[in-house]
């Protein structure tokens, strides 16, 4: 509805009107779209009421789940201590910058050679507007956000098998696909071919809608004219003065579009998690972890490799060693333990929990993924191709190119995401030596941006199965495993409770890790307060 229609009418009046006229289903739909009915699992800062009376909690893993658990439990009066395997805080909330050294499993070492201020987020890189917990923590801890561009109409869709390998602008493929489908449907409806499916009353509305949606002529054709060029862009854009007359552009034919397969990418931006607006932290994703960790100074033991987790009726005792040098086995103990260690690792650690939780810990495989950051001498995608942020998609093994969503029009160097893959391509990339991954990403990317060859400077590649602290990208639940094991994974087992993205319905998303941590500490706190 337009602003003018809403003007002067309260939301309640409007809903009543809709309810009266159109029935309750329509009213529910309207309520949802007005933001009344949709429930968020996050209802603001957690309130842990009641005195834990000095109870202590040992938290394993200093990723977002562990950090959030530590902060909130400490605030509620617990004594907290964290153990972290890596030599940095943040887990998969991670940013690589120039000067960073990254050694993956197998000992393959990379030196990040990005210029100052440039970075790659090897893990999460975007935060949807409805990830309320993430946004709230960013707000509360002063993490500056900027827009993450998911859909860029001027970015490319590319198939090496279509249009002679020439990348196509999203605005062309999207407008033309919509237009042709609208034309087909418009003709079918206007020729009464869908009468069994569309009432006479709806037919007129549908025809009007199709014309507007697809930019169709009165005869329901999708053709080259100002109307369609206002969607897909002009051959020559409108200008000023005597030489300003625009030239309309020619749509691509339906058959070519269908055969190209590029329509596969059109719905990506329609996915709830990718709806505008998305955000990214200014300066890199790990700004979030750093902000959270600021209040936990002195409480996090880095380089601590957990080797066993044992509980008895009174306490939980964890043994650990220095991750790099090995050496003496040390112990840490507390009344309770929140373990956020990824299941890929935890399933290898000696832990005395019941059979149900133990089975759950061993039931979740970790997916493959690979990300590659590439530094170029200049922003040719902006300067030559007018692509400012967003993502181009391709069927080449790099799968996509993500352009920087910040620093637009900077005259200097820049880093883009040169590959982000899942599935077989991710395994194949991970199996290569890091330098070879980068080399291939440059060669494939050059099929879309020929400027790659002259402008490339250096790159860094992260295959997630080789990340030493996680051995994979995220916990890959299936419907069957979730049904059989998820509850058992999330239940508190004696004095041990788990948290992390793997204990959420938002696999791989940071929001999942945070919501999982909040849910776990709420339940743990209830138990503690009740027992004291």
């Amino acid at each position, binding site marked *: 509805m337009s602003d003018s229609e809403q003007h002067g009418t309260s939301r309640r009046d409007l809903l009543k009107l809709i309810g009266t006229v159109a029935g309750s289903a329509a009213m529910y739909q309207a309520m949802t779209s007005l933001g009344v009915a949709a429930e968020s699992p996050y209802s603001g800062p957690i309130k842990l009421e009641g005195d834990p009376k000095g109870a202590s909690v040992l938290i394993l893993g200093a990723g977002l789940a562990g950090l959030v658990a530590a902060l909130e439990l400490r605030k509620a009066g617990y004594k907290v201590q964290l153990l972290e*395997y890596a030599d940095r805080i943040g887990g*998969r909330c991670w940013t690589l910058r120039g000067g960073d050294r990254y050694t993956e*499993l*197998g*000992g393959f070492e990379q030196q990040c050679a990005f210029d100052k201020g440039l970075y790659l987020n090897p*893990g*999460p*890189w*975007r935060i949807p507007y409805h990830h309320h917990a993430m946004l709230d923590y960013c707000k509360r801890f002063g993490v500056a956000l900027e827009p993450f561009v998911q859909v860029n109409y001027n970015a490319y869709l590319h*198939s090496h*098998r279509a249009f002679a390998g020439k990348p196509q602008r999203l605005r062309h493929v999207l407008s033309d696909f919509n237009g042709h489908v609208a034309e087909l449907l418009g003709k079918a409806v206007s020729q009464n071919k869908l009468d069994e499916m569309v009432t006479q009353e709806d037919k007129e509305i549908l025809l009007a809608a199709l014309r507007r949606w697809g930019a169709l002529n009165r005869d329901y054709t999708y053709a080259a004219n100002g109307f369609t060029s206002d969607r897909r862009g002009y051959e020559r854009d409108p200008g000023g003065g005597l030489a300003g007359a625009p030239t309309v552009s020619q749509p691509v034919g339906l058959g070519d579009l269908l055969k190209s*397969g590029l329509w*596969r990418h059109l*719905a*990506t931006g329609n*996915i709830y*998690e*990718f709806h505008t607006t998305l955000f990214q932290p200014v300066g890199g994703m790990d700004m979030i972890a750093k902000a959270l960790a600021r209040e936990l100074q002195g409480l996090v033991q880095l380089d601590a490799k957990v080797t066993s987790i044992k509980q008895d009726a009174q306490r939980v005792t964890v043994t650990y060693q220095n991750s790099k040098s090995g050496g003496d086995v040390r112990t840490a103990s507390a009344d309770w333990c929140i373990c956020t260690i990824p299941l*890929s*690792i935890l*399933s*290898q*650690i000696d832990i005395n929990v019941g059979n149900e939780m133990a089975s759950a810990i*061993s039931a*979740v*495989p*970790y*997916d*493959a*993924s690979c*990300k590659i950051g590439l530094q170029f001498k200049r922003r040719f995608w902006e300067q030559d191709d007018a692509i400012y942020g967003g993502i181009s998609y391709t*069927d*080449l*093994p790099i*799968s996509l190119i993500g352009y920087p969503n910040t620093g637009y029009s900077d005259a200097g160097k820049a880093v883009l995401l040169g590959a982000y*893959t*899942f*599935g*077989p*391509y991710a*395994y*194949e990339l*991970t*199996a290569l030596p890091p330098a070879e991954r980068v080399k*291939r990403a440059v060669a*494939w990317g050059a099929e879309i941006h020929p400027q790659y060859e002259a402008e490339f400077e250096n790159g860094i590649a992260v*295959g*997630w199965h080789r990340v*030493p602290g*996680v*051995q*994979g*990208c*995220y916990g890959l*639940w299936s419907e069957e495993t979730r049904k059989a094991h998820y509850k058992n994974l999330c239940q508190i087992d004696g004095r041990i409770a788990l948290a992390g993205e793997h204990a959420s319905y*938002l*696999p*791989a*998303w*940071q929001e999942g890790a945070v919501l999982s941590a909040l849910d776990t500490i709420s339940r743990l706190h209830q138990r503690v307060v009740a027992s004291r």
Partner: protein
Amino acid sequence: MSSFVPSTSLLLAMLVATGAAAQSADGTFSSNQRFVPKNGEVLYRSICQGCHMPDAKGAVGAGKFPALARNEKLEANGYPVFVVLNGLRGMPGFGLYLDDEQVAAVVNYVRSHFGNNYRDNVSAGDVKAAR
């Protein structure tokens, strides 16, 4: 990992979205729906060594990737077939990405290399029966 990774439905969409691209002389990187190489060694080089390492000696971090070199658990040939098809703990299964011949080829390669000398090869039929 965007999620850094999106929903399962999106992942499926992404899998479907990628077509065949003959990119390497050895047949790797040619499809994101299934692995294409048929040769056991090429399959090892394009999948397994990502975790079990080029020398098959595995790796140690917070946890470990077990060595396949000189690994006595490979003696019973049904075991590696089961693990490749279904995965084990954090290891994903490859049953959806590999056909019976490919599973047999890579299992036979590993069982006859890296200090393993098991001669009783598995067949595609054995793999099929294990699915």
